[in-house]
């Protein structure tokens, strides 16, 4: 009896789980005196809920069937959570094509944005007025009405992008 107490104590204080397991397998599971210091299957069963204690479980299937109706078992690759990877013949996994495509698209976008930013910050500030707007570059060299040279005015309101071109006969 004393040895079983010592053994149980020893298992309790051993620092490494593998050593504990070795002692359990090597001695305690085979020794009747040591086994008596642990709860038996019958004692444990008396504390646990048994299948017979659960009563009627007939309500389980309707609830399940309602939820799985319309579902189909997922394909194996998806079910394993391997939807993002395809198996290679050498057993290793590699990302599928769409992951490469997404990565390439992301990289391209980053390059384009970087170039655009560099260009934006390096471009010289336009000079004068509400400046830089294309309306400033509007030029009308020559306007004729009824085969006669006409007077031409160009209006550009400050708060709008609209350009109004007015041409009138020379009177």
């Amino acid at each position, binding site marked *: 009896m004393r040895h079983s107490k010592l053994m*149980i104590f020893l*298992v*309790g204080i051993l620092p490494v*789980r*593998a050593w*504990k*397991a*070795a002692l*359990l*397998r090597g001695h*305690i599971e085979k020794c009747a005196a040591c086994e008596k*210091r*642990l*709860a038996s*299957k019958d*004692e*444990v*069963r008396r*504390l*646990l*809920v*048994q*299948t017979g*204690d*659960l009563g009627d*479980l007939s309500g*389980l*299937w309707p*609830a*399940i*069937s309602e*939820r*799985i*109706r319309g*579902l*189909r*078992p*997922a*394909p*194996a690759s998806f*079910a*394993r959570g391997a939807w993002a990877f395809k198996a290679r013949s050498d057993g290793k996994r590699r990302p599928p094509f769409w992951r490469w495509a997404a990565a390439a698209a992301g990289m391209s976008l980053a390059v384009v944005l970087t170039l655009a930013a560099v260009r934006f910050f390096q471009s010289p500030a336009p000079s004068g007025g509400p400046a830089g707007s294309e309306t400033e570059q509007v030029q009308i060299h020559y306007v004729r009405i009824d085969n006669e040279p006409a007077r031409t005015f160009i209006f550009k309101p400050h708060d709008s992008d609209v350009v109004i071109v007015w041409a009138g006969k020379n009177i």
Partner: protein
Amino acid sequence: MGDNALSAACLEGDLGEFREIVDGHKAAVMALAVNILGNLQDAEDACQETFIQVYRNLESYDPRKSFKNWIFTILYRRCLDQLRKQRRFQSAFHRAKHELPGHAPAKGVDPGKTKFFSQDVLARLSPRERAVLVLWANEGYTAAEISKVIPCSPSTARVYLFNARKKIKSYLEKSHAAL
């Protein structure tokens, strides 16, 4: 019909075969869930989720392994998830209770959950230890078989089982002495 044949039939969309699987395993699955979670309502939820997950993942089942173990593994993970969620909810609930002094907690917060831990000792064990105990005592599993359900080595399963049995024995001895 064996589980492998049933699962193959289910893959062809036969719900009747899946019902056979559910009927064949529901009692054992439910008992494991109740013993891990400690109340019937949560156990029912866990069982439903488990069987739905089983149905969805039937094609990934490896027929060389035990179908029952596979279901138990899914259930065990479900139960741990559920306990984690409960802990988060309870801590949030306690925080809210402390932040509202004088506010009496609503009586329906934990609505009618039928507690199954009639013995305090089971509540003192960790969910892992309870799972190991059920598999050992109710299902007759060895440490090696337990380690296939609860992802760990057989040595670790053996140590969990030892700790759980020791705790139960000391509880039983104390309660016997008190009488």
